[in-house]
């Protein structure tokens, strides 16, 4: 059957880009949105420029100044190997941001497409797929990730697809639910009655109308992914030393906490502000778009 393509009209419609521009302006008008966006932007900028601004090399050890308290030379002191903590804090978010910012779009695309398809398709395909989704959801959260990292190593080429795969599974459920809400609307019924193909209905009717839900979902999942990434790193299943990472730094500095409590403070503050920033942004985005995702049980 023939399929509809978006006709190219000379006079353009109120563009999607302009709509999202408006959403962004509304978003930063909320106090939580403004703080959130500021924190995320700060972290992204620091991650981008930190290699050029850090005062020391992140792997240079100096046995003379082990666990030194903050001094004018070392603003945040030094760690157990005599490395400058400030340097490592500034660099410590790069891996997390890089991995998660790459994995989240993958997550949302694969989870979203599968979920929307299942929501429209229904029937036995949906039934079987949802049983599989249930089975994966029943697996204990972080365990499959640890197993993968343990077996294949902690490289980004392992972490990104693994995170994207496992985070995409609950997204299937969310996208499918959002699709069910849209499929019941008359405009989808009208498109079906006209005889549009499934692919056309997905692209023209379903995806644009589930996009808001998916954006909020993506922002929320990003904060959880950062949380998971740092937890993995904390447990020793993340970034390979000596590359600095906050989770790993906290785990190392904890041991000497009674001697040098400043060692944990830097990475803790950095990590927490990043995740809170993402979360506040997601929360404000949900409110701006009028989507209440707390109402549904988190899957």
């Amino acid at each position, binding site marked *: 059957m023939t399929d509809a393509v978006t006709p190219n009209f000379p006079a353009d419609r109120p563009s999607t880009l302009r709509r999202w521009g408006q959403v962004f302006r509304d978003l930063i008008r909320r106090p939580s949105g403004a703080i959130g966006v500021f924190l995320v932007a700060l972290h992204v900028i620091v991650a981008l420029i930190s290699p050029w601004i850090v005062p020391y090399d992140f792997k240079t050890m100096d046995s003379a100044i082990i666990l030194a308290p903050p001094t004018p030379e070392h603003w945040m002191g030094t760690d157990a190997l005599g490395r400058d903590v400030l340097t490592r804090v500034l660099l410590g978010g790069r891996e997390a941001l890089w991995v998660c910012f790459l994995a989240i779009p993958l997550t949302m695309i694969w989870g979203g497409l599968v979920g929307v398809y299942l929501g429209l398709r229904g029937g036995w395909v949906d039934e079987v797929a949802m049983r599989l989704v249930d089975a994966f959801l029943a697996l*204990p959260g972080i*365990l499959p990730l640890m197993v993968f990292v343990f077996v294949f190593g902690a490289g980004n080429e392992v972490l990104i697809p693994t995170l994207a795969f496992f985070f995409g599974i609950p997204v299937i459920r969310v996208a499918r639910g959002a699709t069910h809400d849209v499929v019941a609307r008359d405009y989808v019924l009208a498109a079906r009655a006209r005889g549009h193909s499934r692919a056309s209905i997905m692209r023209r009717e379903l995806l644009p109308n589930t996009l808001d839900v998916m954006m909020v979902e993506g922002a929320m999942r990003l904060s959880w992914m950062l949380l998971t990434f740092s937890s993995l790193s904390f447990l020793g299943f993340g970034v390979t030393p000596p590359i600095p990472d906050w989770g790993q730094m906290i785990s190392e500095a904890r041991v000497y906490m009674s001697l040098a409590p400043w060692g944990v403070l830097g990475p803790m503050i950095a990590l927490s502000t990043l995740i809170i920033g993402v979360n506040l942004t997601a929360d404000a985005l949900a409110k701006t778009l009028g989507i209440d995702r707390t109402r549904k049980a988190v899957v």
Partner: protein
Amino acid sequence: MINLLLRRLALGVVTVWLVSVIIFAGMEVLPGDACTVVLERDAQGEVLENCRKNLGLDKPALQRYLDWAAGAARGDFGLSADGTTKISTEVALRVKNSILLAAGALSVGVPLAIFLGVIAGLARDRFPDIFVSTLAIFAMTIPEFVTATILVLIFSIWLGLLPAVVLTPADAPALAFWPEFIPAVIVLIMVMVAHIMRMVRSSVIEVMASEYVQMATLKGVPYWRIVFRHALPNALLPAINVVALTVAWLLGGVVVVEVVFNYPGIGRMMIDAISDRDLPIIQALVMLIAATYVLVNLVADLASMLLNPRLRTLKMRAK
């Protein structure tokens, strides 16, 4: 009603079965098996073959799956990879400890979360709501190991009130963990309260804006009577499912918290098993946790069906 119950039960069984297939297949696909792990560098030639023969690893995969699944169904997961411990005995101990931790967190956390959620929902956008909701965002976003570290810093290092880690062995009686397990419980409570509270809050807001609450107001029902008789029974129904997910999360091995506080529950057993490459233990734990997840959600579905007159009678009619 009975029909529906049986269907839900059947779906649960299917899910657990699929989990078992996924795990078994996963472990098959991953490189290495029990023998390569135990023998390490000696794992080659005749030695390896003998070891595999002894452990029954030379049989076809399907045969091994059936043997394993049959054992698992009876609660017998065989021996750990190094052949020293009976998995079910060790797991039982850890499960007991994990339940203890979960019970501690739930008994305080659920009532607290519902209370805060109701308060925030009723005082929507006013001070109590903004205060509680802001705290909740912090509690649910700051990583558990960060909160845990702060608690240790304050209570153990600076104030010296509590031990920084749990030193009680895994097989100690339940009471022996008091008061060592308090910091772990506090960390868990913070995360779960935030999640449940946010859900209860939006549910309360939605119900308080409903037409039947408006009608009750215009019927002259006093405010608090509206809240308790008309609003809360409806607002708290959806909380059942979130509480169920929380229970599943708590019983599913709170790896990070258990590691931080050195608490001997299934979370730490899991991470130890991974480090030791002890495949039989990993398989057993995952099966157990998945079954718990399915069971808890099943119970929650049944509970909301029983408590919600709408679902209850509709289903009975449908039959």
